[in-house]
């Protein structure tokens, strides 16, 4: 397939990226240089005029397979693939073959028989996309698996920070909320620590996974201490669907101690920015007014960057696969 031609003014990174794998399953284990290149390439896509023709993946078939509800991630992937000229088919399997008792691998091999180039998978079980990668011969992107990882979210968060602040290394970044049940937190921890940021995790002790500090982060159960001098405050949603009901006394108590409000934010760096992967629960993890504060909240930018990041990843996977076939 064609590759996007380099223009005169473009930076060094404005050509497709070759990755070490033809899947994107997790940030853990990814090289810093690879992450950097994907972000640079996404930055290039984000800067493009929307009418620039980026349709280099004509005939490339993408299956967007979601075993879990999603609006933003699914639409973002679809848009990214379409901007690259790929054909996208959305498949929601929440109520379909799973309920009929078909095994995941049967579903996967059925989809594989239609010979897609890329399968984008979201699944409620940690590790499910790895199973797909073991059994199928197309590329796989993990669009979120259980509590494990959500690599594209971490990449788009990094791009968002980079565009606002300019760099990642040395930044103090506080990830606050339901860390235990969050795949976004895990991917961000791996990515940001790899890039040299100082990552702190803030959660009630009931939602702090065990031995998290072994992942190279500092853990806080006091939010005021956890966000002191932070350059970035990332908030996470309480994932009630993954809880037993024994984690928190009430939402109002949670907001009191772990919700981001003006008073707590005042302890962070005066220029600190606020991020949230969405969907947000206003008045639970974030005061409504802060979410809408366009000077500090990057929440909408995150959504926008999602498309650019996913374009860079889809393009990179195609490029990687083409290179693998050549060799």
């Amino acid at each position, binding site marked *: 397939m064609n590759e996007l031609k380099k223009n005169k003014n473009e930076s060094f990174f404005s050509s497709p990226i070759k990755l070490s794998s033809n899947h994107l399953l997790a940030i853990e284990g990814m090289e810093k240089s690879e992450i950097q290149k994907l972000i640079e390439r996404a930055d290039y896509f984000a800067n493009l005029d929307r009418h620039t023709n980026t349709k280099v993946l004509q005939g490339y078939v993408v299956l967007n397979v979601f075993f879990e509800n999603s609006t933003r991630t699914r639409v973002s992937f679809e848009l990214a693939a379409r901007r690259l000229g790929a054909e996208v088919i959305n498949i929601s399997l929440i109520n379909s073959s799973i309920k009929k008792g078909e095994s995941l691998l049967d579903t996967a091999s059925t989809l594989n028989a239609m010979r897609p180039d890329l399968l984008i998978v979201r699944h409620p079980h940690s*590790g499910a996309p790895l199973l797909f990668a073991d059994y199928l011969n197309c590329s796989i992107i993990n669009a979120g698996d259980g509590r494990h990882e959500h690599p594209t979210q971490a990449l788009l968060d990094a791009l968002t920070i980079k565009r606002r602040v300019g760099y990642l290394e040395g930044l103090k970044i506080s990830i606050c909320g339901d860390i235990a049940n969050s795949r976004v937190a895990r991917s961000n921890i791996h990515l940001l620590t790899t890039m040299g940021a100082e990552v702190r995790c803030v959660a009630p002790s009931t939602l702090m996974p065990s031995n998290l500090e072994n992942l190279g982060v500092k853990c806080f159960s006091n939010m005021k201490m956890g966000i002191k001098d932070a350059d970035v405050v990332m908030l996470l949603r309480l994932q009630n669907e993954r809880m037993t009901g024994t984690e928190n006394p009430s939402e109002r108590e949670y907001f009191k101690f772990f919700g981001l409000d003006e008073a707590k934010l005042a302890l962070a760096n005066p220029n600190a920015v606020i991020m949230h992967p969405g969907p947000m629960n206003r008045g639970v993890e974030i005061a409504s007014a802060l979410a809408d504060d366009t000077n500090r909240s990057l929440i909408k930018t995150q959504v926008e960057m999602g498309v650019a990041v996913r374009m860079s990843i889809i393009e990179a996977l195609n490029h990687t696969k083409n290179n693998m076939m050549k060799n």
Partner: protein
Amino acid sequence: MTFTVLKSIKVLNPKTYFNDISDVVICNDKIFSICKDFKTEVSNQDRQINIYDCNGLTMSPGLIDMRVNIGKTENLTAIQKIAAENGITSMVILPNQTPKLNNPSIIDHIKRQSETPNVTKVNIYGAATKDDHGLEMSEIGLMSEMGAIGFTNGNKSIKNSLVMRRLMSYAAMINRPIIQHAEDEDLSGLNKASTTLINGEMNEGEISTRLGLIGIPSCAEVIIVERDIRLAKLTGASYHVAHVSTRDSINVIREAKKIGLKVTCDTAPPYFALNETSLLSYNTAFKLSPPLRKEDDRLAVIEGIQDGTIDAIASDHRARSKDTKAQPFSAASVGASGIETLFLMTLELVHKKIIDLNKAISLLTINPANVLKMEKPSLEKDGLADFIIFDENYHDVINQNNLKTSPTPFDHRKIKGKILGTFINGQVAHINQILKDKIIK
């Protein structure tokens, strides 16, 4: 009359600590003689004699596997045959199959059904409570009369303290042990079995955090063990903890033994040979209950084996179909095959110089017999001829493709040792070509 002679075989008898090279003569279902030269004992004038040259081979009583799950799709007779091929002459099956083994008539039925000649003998644990709610004692006296040798709720913990107290008290009265799968199901999240999103899936710690899997804290085991030991003290019961996997529970069992309580325990090869790092690739062959623990717990299991705190090694066989294992980790079934690797993995402890061969054989024969108050297996004149012949130094690699049950957690593991023959009631239940070739014409 036909005599079978095993010439120059190393005889290991854990009951008498006998360990010497001898000629062993088998006649009918009994050991006719163990002597220096068989010719002094039998003449071949009017009898048929099959002589095997067993130089370099070892003989021990047949193995007793005290924990075998028979799965929904498994056939008991088939498992008995596979067990026999792997040196197990007697195995105990768990009650949590379909239908549950929770009343005397079904115990009787399974007993009769299992009486196929020349395959592994079957003993049965009756269900301790009538159903999974675990609130009513089943007819353990009547089941005991039908041959149930102990009582347990299999892979579920006996949860209610009062029920456990009554069970122990009653079982002590009829001199049968209570066998516990020690796991606080509230802590491990298994009491809400309705959804796979909040069930405990593996040992809690850094690895579960990295994988995004739900952790089961290791204290979920010792909490139940500690409670039960107090109840054993109260009731005087024989209490046996199945598949111990944590340092803490081994420590409290060690202390209970010191003060003379009738507390025993076993473990299974995964818990002394593997740890939780095996799960890093989400390989569902390692999804076990109890879950694989930390390296420190594995070392504690080895210490427990060495110092005798752990009485026995069982296979904890719980074979699963490929379909239920080729799943995302959270959705995959729990358990792994074990009867085909029990002997080999226990022998690995000998090759690693953790225990000696006598000890290894005791852990697999006389010790489980003691725990379950079964007849002590022995190799002696006029004793029952249930025994195995093996080559302790045969180099091999465990390969799933060569096994009859799956999944094995020990695929591709290099091992030393091979069962060459299994005799049950003096009859050949299994004989390998290597041994067949050793017959002296």
